[in-house]
């Protein structure tokens, strides 16, 4: 019988064993060394907030401009999460990144949204957002979203007439959703000029062909006509009695109107004593109606 024992020379075993142990020790040292360095010397590094000048970037990027734009777009998105003590400096930093991105590739529309709307909070921030979007509008005149976002910012600032101006601009751009046209009378109403909203809707009535849209415009027209009518009666009341009535029913009691018109949105008209103006409890009913007509995406 053959002896089946296998013999290993010491050299063949000890050599690899030694190097395996040495490797494991070094790996452990590296791991714990890194941990120790991290805990012992946590250096406070200054972050360098720098965006290269656009002209230089254009030279360097060549036909990779769109590629560079994407990089700055991502930088901008990441910059949104940066923490700054000075809010305006943070807005500047984010906007600078998106400015470079949108200059290198003006079709990066979402960049305008982030820099002009998402980060814009507070009056000063919104104004900065508007400035940014205005610049974007100059180089990207065909995108309906940019004037829409400017309008939205003006709406937040409660400058309704300016909001209308930009919604009007947005509604005329290619690809603009239809609701942008019919939303404007509401802002005229909020700006205290329902008479202008009435004129606008009367003009819109002649340009709409779709029966569902027509029904929608007619409802709004009826709604704003009633407001204009009631405000007119309110003026007459003030001229007669020299003061604002307590309730809307006072107009009926004074014989200025036979019936208080019905709100076609299902709400009702009322008198806001603070401003002495006719208002409507339209908001909830309008949302329902918009959702029904499929005009409004956000309402549902």
């Amino acid at each position, binding site marked *: 019988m053959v002896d089946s024992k296998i013999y290993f020379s010491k050299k063949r075993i000890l050599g690899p064993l030694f190097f395996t142990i040495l490797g494991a020790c070094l790996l452990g040292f590296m791991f714990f060394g890194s941990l120790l360095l991290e805990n012992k010397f946590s250096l406070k590094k200054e972050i360098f907030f720098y965006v290269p000048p656009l002209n230089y970037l254009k030279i360097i990027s*060549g*036909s990779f401009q769109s*590629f560079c734009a*994407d990089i700055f777009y991502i930088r901008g998105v990441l910059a949104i999460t940066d923490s700054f003590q000075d809010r305006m400096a943070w807005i500047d930093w984010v906007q600078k990144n998106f400015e470079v991105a949108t200059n290198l590739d003006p079709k990066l529309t979402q960049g305008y949204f*982030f820099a002009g709307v998402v980060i814009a909070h507070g009056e000063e921030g919104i104004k900065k957002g508007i400035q940014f979007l205005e610049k974007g509008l100059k180089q990207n005149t065909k995108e309906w979203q940019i004037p829409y976002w400017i309008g939205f910012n003006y709406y937040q600032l409660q400058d309704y007439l300016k909001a209308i101006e930009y919604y009007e601009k947005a509604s005329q751009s290619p690809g603009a959703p239809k609701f942008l046209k019919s939303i404007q009378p509401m802002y005229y109403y909020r700006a205290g000029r329902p008479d202008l909203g009435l004129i606008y809707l009367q003009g819109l009535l002649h340009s709409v062909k779709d029966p569902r849209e027509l029904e929608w415009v007619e409802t709004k027209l009826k709604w704003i006509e009633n407001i204009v009518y009631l405000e007119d009666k309110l003026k007459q009341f003030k001229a007669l009695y020299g003061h604002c009535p307590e309730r809307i029913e006072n107009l009926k009691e004074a014989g200025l109107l036979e019936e208080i018109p019905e709100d076609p949105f299902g709400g009702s008209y009322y008198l806001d004593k603070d401003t002495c103006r006719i208002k409507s409890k339209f908001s909830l009913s309008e949302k329902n109606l918009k959702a029904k007509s499929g005009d409004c995406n956000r309402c549902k």
Partner: protein
Amino acid sequence: MREIISIAFLNFKQGVREKLFWGVIFFFAFFLSLCVLLGKLSPGETEKVLRNEGLSGIELSGLVLVVFSLVLSFKKEEESRFLEIYLSNFSRTNYLSGKLIGYLLICLFYLLLSGLGYMLILFLYKSFIWQVAAGFYSLFLKLSILICFSLVFCCLFSSPIISLFCSLSLYLASEAAYPALKIVSLGPNRFRLSLFKFIYYLLPNMNELDIKSLAVYGELPSLSFFFSIGLYAFVYILFLWLIARFIFLKKEY
């Protein structure tokens, strides 16, 4: 003609078998996964970023592949005396033409492989539009011109480092020529403007050849544009081949 075809296929086989080729393919696969990550970091523009970064990655990796592969193979053949064996059996013109066609085939093959991987990723992330395929045509034209430039530099210089450096510098110069011209045109110096215009039209017009930024948005120029850039690239390649041939005929090996 048979001689040219056999040299071309020999170069193609050699180029495809090289580690560099598969190294670049591996690099590109890694780059594609980075593109997916970049796409996820770009809310609102994910699809565009994925398409654009992928095309740019193909161009850059293709550039590295064709320039390095051509320059290194030229040098290797020169040092290992393969060049002498080639030249004792084939004419210099045929050798140079075969080499050029061989590397154009390598470039085409690389674009095909990387294009398949790229489009697969676009399909998976629902970002595919057929227009991006048209972007490959312009990439091929750009890289073809660059192959010719590398060939000229390989014939001109005996040092591969200088050939590499010149090829890459020329690529950078032609990429930067258009925006540089735009900036110079804002200044008052007419002489400088004329000089830059001359340089711009002399260098390959990468600005016109590039349609990446359009293709990623699904917009394409007319068919006549594609025909025109094809013709332009063909003439440019022919001109560079003539220069390379002239130098190669004069050189002693």
